[in-house]
């Protein structure tokens, strides 16, 4: 029966090729718009490390000015970074299973065969747990040891891209490289790793939420040891002029991002108690003039409070759905008109013994075929549209372009949505034609 229905549907399409193309085109445009916006939205709102959402926490404490909040637009939020004093104290705790600090330094690389002249690279100063906490994949070697954090030892981890430039992509573990004119030993090379959004660091000076991960990684303590000023976001308040590195370390300037990995809710409570005790002690000593606001943020919460999904992309997503709605209403209208025009034919089929159900099924098959054609066309258009959006943003040098790539899951969602909605849209016309009384049409013949 299905084969016969398909044959009938194809014949019907051939009878009105213009109308059929119009309907398939309308569906395709609606789907394409949805694919583009859903993909961008899905990538933006995605949690790149969802499997650890219940164990990773960003640490914040409100060390800011008693007279004003850190962010005037969100007065209840503490600064998203910590002062050196607080970060190093909290890092000393052995409650978390893992813990890491993060800041940025400009590192000038030289002394490898791939380099004709020194190049400055964005270096992430961090601790060994960074790689294990965030499941960072390695192509060669691995993270440095905990002992290297304390030294600090001159060890460096390179991104895959940087290793490609410096060593032609060869296994460079054990090789030496000059980082700010000091000899560093390569201990690891990352594999492809570019989580989007870059959840572990959303600060603007790090390049924003959709920036690439750093080119090189060195132990956190190298910053203070060499007194290299942090090159990432740093915010200060208060009357003190910060003009020496020593003053920076003792100041209330915030510039360090901290994450901890906690196994259980009991561990989480213990770490929060530890923070609160430290807060109380410091407050007694005259710091922390603002109300207590110690917080451990899950990755998903962290992304939400930082408004990683831009208002514009949310707006465009809604627009796409409105567009799809118009396309579908349009399809319902055209289908209805088309089916009713064939009503007299259906009258004959009914009179010859076809049941209502069979008429309904026959038309539903036609709708399904149409939806299939529209979806296929929509997929192609959507791919084209994504490429357009990507080019538009890439050309303007905006990091947003990074999220406009063909994301299989996002596309699958859009397609499922499209197929379902077109079939739903076809239900009413198919049902309507099934209800047609054959007598009326036979009479007028």
């Amino acid at each position: 029966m299905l084969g016969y229905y398909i044959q009938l549907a194809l014949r019907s399409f051939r009878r009105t090729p213009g109308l059929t193309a119009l309907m398939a085109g309308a569906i395709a445009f609606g789907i394409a718009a949805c694919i583009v916006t859903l993909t961008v939205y899905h990538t933006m709102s995605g949690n790149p490390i969802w499997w650890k959402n219940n164990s990773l926490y960003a640490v914040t404490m409100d060390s800011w000015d008693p007279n004003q909040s850190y962010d005037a637009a969100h007065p209840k939020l503490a600064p998203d970074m910590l002062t050196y004093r607080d970060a190093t104290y909290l890092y000393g705790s052995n409650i978390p299973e893992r813990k890491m600090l993060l800041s940025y330094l400009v590192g000038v690389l030289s002394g490898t065969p791939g380099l004709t002249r020194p190049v400055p690279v964005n270096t992430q100063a961090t601790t060994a747990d960074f790689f294990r906490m965030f499941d960072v994949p390695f192509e060669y070697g691995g993270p440095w040891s905990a002992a290297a954090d304390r030294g600090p030892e001159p060890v460096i981890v390179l991104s895959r891209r940087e290793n490609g430039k410096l060593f032609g992509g060869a296994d460079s573990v054990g090789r030496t490289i000059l980082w700010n004119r000091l000899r560093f030993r390569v201990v690891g090379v990352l594999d492809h790793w570019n989580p989007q959004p870059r959840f572990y660091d959303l600060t603007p000076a790090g390049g924003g939420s959709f920036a690439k991960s750093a080119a090189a990684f060195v132990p956190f303590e190298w910053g203070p040891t060499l007194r290299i000023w942090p090159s990432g976001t740093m915010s200060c308040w208060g009357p003190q002029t910060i003009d020496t590195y020593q003053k920076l370390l003792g100041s209330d300037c915030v510039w360090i991002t901290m994450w901890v990995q906690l196994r259980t809710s009991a561990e989480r409570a213990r770490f929060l108690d530890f923070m609160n005790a430290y807060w109380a002690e410091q407050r007694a000593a005259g710091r922390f003039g603002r109300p207590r606001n110690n917080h451990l943020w899950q990755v998903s919460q962290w992304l939400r409070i930082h408004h990683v999904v831009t208002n514009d992309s949310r707006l465009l997503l809604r627009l796409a759905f409105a567009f799809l709605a118009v396309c579908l209403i349009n399809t319902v209208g055209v289908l209805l008109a088309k089916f009713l025009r064939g009503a007299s034919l259906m009258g004959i089929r009914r009179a010859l013994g076809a049941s209502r159900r069979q008429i309904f099924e026959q038309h539903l098959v036609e709708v399904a075929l149409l939806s299939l054609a529209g979806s296929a066309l929509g997929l192609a258009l959507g791919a084209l549209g994504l490429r357009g959006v990507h080019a538009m943003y890439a050309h303007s040098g905006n990091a947003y372009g990074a999220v406009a790539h063909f994301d299989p899951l996002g596309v699958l969602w859009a397609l499922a949505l499209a197929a379902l909605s077109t079939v739903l849209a076809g239900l009413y016309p198919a049902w309507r034609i099934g209800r047609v009384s054959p007598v009326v049409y036979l009479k007028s013949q």
Partner: protein
Amino acid sequence: MKTARTQVNLMNVPIRPLFSSLRRNPTGAVLVALQVAITLAVMINAAWIVAQRLEKLERPTGIDTRDTFEIGIVGSSRKFNVAQAESEDLAYLRGLPGVAAATVVNGILLTENGGDTDLSRDPGTNGPVVGANFLTVDDQALNTLDVPLIAGRNFRADEIRPLTKGKQTPPSEVIVTQSLARTLFPHGSALGRIIYNGDSNPLTVIGITRDFMGPQVGAPAYNTVLLPTMPGQAGLYALLVRTRPGMRDTVMREAKQHIGTAHRFGITGFSTPLAKAERQMHAGDRNTAILLTTVTALMLAVCCLGVFGLTTFNVGSRRRQIGTRRALGASKRDIVAHFMMEGALILSGGAFLGSILALVVGNWLTVHYALPRLDLVYLLGGVLALWIVGLLAAWQPARRAADVPPSVATRTV
């Protein structure tokens, strides 16, 4: 048979057949009206959003971005002598024939790379504060930016505080932009007044410039304060260069090459034409405007296809009725007028529903996206535009209806 009337007089369209045909088969008409309503609501609000974006895009930077570039220098070792490197670079750049002016600066204008600060009219941290972009520069800054003073004077060369042992020296004079001056001192001139930069160090306003955009890390674009002190405390600094017209790329390439190898412990980090920075600054708004316009135009097209399709269907399925009316004396124009009127009726119904929807959506956008309240001119304009475009879509099938010959009435199928 040629009709004597030359005008389609819509008032003469019989109303009864219009409504009875709509009543007999309302589904198609309701569906088209629904499309019209949604399209209208989206179109009006999209146009309103795009208008806001265009206004933002048209805000001038206040700087000569075409002939200006920045180049950054970073130390590769603690032995890097920043103060010496800065003066060598400036001397080199100012000696180049293609360079009109050059200065040092502590950030990249228009790119969110730089610093901002809170300024106040009162010492201490209790008074109200105003956020401002924070530029530490020398006496050539205004000349390089090509920004005119509107009151007061420029920094003198002897007022520029040098870096001493790598440390920046706090100055006591500042130049502010007009916007910043007005925000700090709404009543009366800011010139000669004292402001405070968080600390108790008093700063005297010695000059006020025309507005220009700063780096905008957090502060409003046009709020900028210039301080006469050499940057480079963190071992890195930037040079801002304005070239003679058309020579930007040549000079930038040459300067990058020279400066990259000139210093013993310092190398060039980046080089950016400010025109590129300006483009990137506008990218988000521009792209959103483009995407909104594209999708809305497609939506309007689909909506028009709906009107076209419905009218075509109606004409096709009422051929006999049309023939009968023609046989009974209705002119071609009466037939066209009938279908146009029917289209107008559906469009009006959709426009009515759509206007309400547009206001609801507009209100929602005001609440959730802090968009200014929808201007009613956009509502009226949108309704009118959709009405006209919709009628145009109904025109072709309505014309075809007029070609149905009266003889159809006498034929059986």
